[in-house]
């Protein structure tokens, strides 16, 4: 006689109590939480973007029916010298921000993070004040600062060095530098704060270990601090590129895009063509180009950051492997 105990029959799967919602809420809840943002994103970004792409295939004065234009607007864009100048100007601003503003903001952040700095909260607040000021107000103020005859800047220059001052807003290159200067003034503080947050995230043990190994200040900065800031740097460069590609208020108010289009940005051109000259179809075409450029610029900036990180990691692994082999 077999004494093997019969296994109790497998319990029938219990149907969850409650209705459909109770059964599916765990699966659906994440989508519901992101839904408000997603709905607004579709309504105010994706929808208008698709409409702009559709509009770029038409001529429209802002009223009445759309007239089909096919690729005429795109062909016009390829031969538009004003657009070429505007793209050149915008690239100048982007390069100036990435090459000058980002490193300067990093140095500011390093200074703010210094343990011996007194009144650091006052400094941080002071650096953030320009970001809180409206771009329009800042530009109106700087029109007065940069004026050739009665501006504050030339007043200081004439007082210190004599001469007639500089025509800041009247010469093409000085006007570009003036616009870039206003952008720096407005955003250096905020970018420095982003770097400061990144700096405070770097493990102190790593820094201490490097110092124990004999690393000096500059070596610690290059080999510990900067690599530790890589994710923040990638993010900062990406948002700076995105923000600067869309620059509008500073050149619009400081110089109205002049002299001779030397400071006109792509967004300003979209505004002029669309709202002043009533060529909404062509303005939409340039807007589509801007979206593509912004998206591409961001992808490139982030990919460059990731590639650099991978290269560093590979070099570190190779160094560890060769050290092991040597032992």
């Amino acid at each position: 006689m077999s004494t093997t105990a019969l296994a109790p029959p497998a319990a029938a799967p219990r149907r969850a109590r409650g209705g459909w919602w109770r059964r599916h809420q765990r699966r659906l809840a994440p989508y519901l939480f992101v839904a408000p943002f997603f709905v607004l994103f579709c309504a105010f970004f994706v929808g208008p973007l698709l409409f702009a792409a559709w509009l770029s295939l038409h001529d429209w004065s802002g009223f009445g029916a759309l007239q089909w234009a096919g690729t005429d607007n795109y062909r016009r864009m390829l031969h538009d010298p004003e657009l070429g100048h505007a793209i050149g100007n915008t690239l100048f601003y982007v390069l100036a921000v990435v090459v000058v503003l980002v490193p300067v903001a990093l140095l500011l952040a390093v200074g703010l993070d210094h343990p011996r700095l007194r009144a650091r909260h006052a400094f941080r607040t002071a650096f953030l004040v320009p970001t809180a000021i409206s771009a329009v107000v800042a530009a109106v103020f700087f029109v007065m600062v940069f004026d050739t005859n009665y501006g504050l800047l030339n007043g200081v220059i004439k007082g210190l060095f004599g001469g007639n001052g500089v025509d800041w807003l009247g010469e093409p290159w000085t006007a570009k530098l003036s616009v870039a200067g206003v952008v720096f003034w407005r955003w250096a503080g905020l970018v420095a704060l982003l770097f400061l947050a990144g700096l405070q995230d770097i493990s102190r043990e790593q820094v201490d270990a490097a110092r124990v190994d004999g690393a000096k200040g500059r070596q610690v900065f290059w080999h510990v601090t900067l690599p530790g800031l890589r994710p923040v740097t990638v993010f900062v460069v990406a948002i700076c590129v995105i923000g600067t590609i869309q620059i509008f208020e500073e050149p619009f108010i400081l110089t109205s895009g002049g002299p001779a289009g030397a400071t006109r940005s792509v967004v300003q051109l979209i505004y002029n063509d669309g709202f002043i000259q009533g060529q909404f179809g062509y303005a939409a075409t340039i807007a589509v180009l801007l979206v593509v450029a912004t998206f591409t610029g961001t992808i490139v900036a982030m990919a460059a950051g990731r590639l650099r990180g991978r290269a560093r990691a590979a070099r570190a692994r190779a160094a560890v492997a060769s050290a092991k082999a040597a032992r």
Partner: protein
Amino acid sequence: MSQDTRRASDLARIPEGPLTRRTLLKGAGSAGALLLGGSVLAACGSDSGGAATTAAGKTQDVTVKFWTHDPLLSVPFVKQEAKRLSAAANAPYRYKIVPTIIPADQIPPKARAAFLAKTNAPDLPAFEIGAFCQMMGIADQTLVDLTDAVGAVRGENIDKLWQPYAVGDRVYGVETSTSWFAGYFRPDEFKKLGLPAPDTFGTWDELLAAAERAAVPKGKVLGLIGTNSILATRIFMGFLQQAGGQIFNPDGSVALKSQAAVDALTMVSKAIQSGVFQAVEDSFAGPGAAALKSGNVIANPAADWYLQYVLQPSVPDQRNQWQLGLLPGFTADGPRGGYFGGLCFSVAKDSPVADATVELVKASILTKQGQLDNFKLNNLNPTWKSLYQEPDYLAKTAPFLGGQRVGEVYAKLIENVPSAPIQSADFGAAITVVGDELVAAYKGRKSPQAAISAASSALEAKVKEAQ
């Protein structure tokens, strides 16, 4: 029963509080949906208009949404006229004016969007002359045709001042005043320099030569010229029209390449380069105010509204030190002034109070009383020739100018009227391409002939592109 089991059963018996996490989330979700739905419904709602219909023959209460860039002059004037009309015996309408202040170049795109959406649209939009070009392509669809209203008094107008707001032969805006371009100057400073008043000089060349000898060495300046592209073009147009030139022909083609344009640009460039005029980024805002406050600016060719908008607020301490005078001409017998700017009142076609608004426009600008009211209240000159001989007009004094009878100065301009501005739908393009070339000439980077030629070619290319 194990301790764990007992604890679990105890927990099962604990009644749930009134507010659980689930209840809170449900409540928040419902409130959010209600708020969002309410906002969406409100936004989708259309304007019901401002008219309250009452029994026929009785006064109707109307609310007129008035859009303007000018809070200082046009708003008080419209409110005053609305009050006057409402108080008249057997008045058909009782007006309530609701002004909205918007920058001049923003009114056309915002009005266009509002007309398209048929919501929150203005009933009475005031278009600045340079911004009206943006409405010309859609004027027949969005604005009331005021040709008949203007037609009854068209002969009264000074040299086709109705033209800048017309498309073809249909008029869609009524010019509110004549923005004369004359000369403000300081007699005390002129006396110190041994210079006679500017209006005693026959031509600009004579004035510039005398000023270069007497005023420039003392650091004194006889004019402020704005150098951002928009202002550069606008100020240049005043001199251009005085010289007999135009940017556009009546058929929309470019008329810039002319001897009058070269003469006007040569004069202004020479004046800037010799120091008689001073170039500032914005002669109506901060830099211009700083220049006036410095005390070095002893004269300035400017529009009639310059007194209230710039001179009085910037240099109140220079009260009673300024006077108004005519400008020298480009030729000995040429006009002694020009035009600078303009503002029209239009009526929205789909406005529920369009009829009442048309009546308001007619009564406030197309009557003798309305025109004189505007002058007495705001120092803004009539558009009717005949009013320049009215005793009320000639007797008006300007307290800031030491009680000077400014009407007597402007009345002289009627004797030799400069050419009225000719409007074009491409005026927006003109502002940028022409302005850049003008500034190049002001700074000596190009000769006036080369600058006018380049500006004309660039503008022709833009006009062709737009077609």
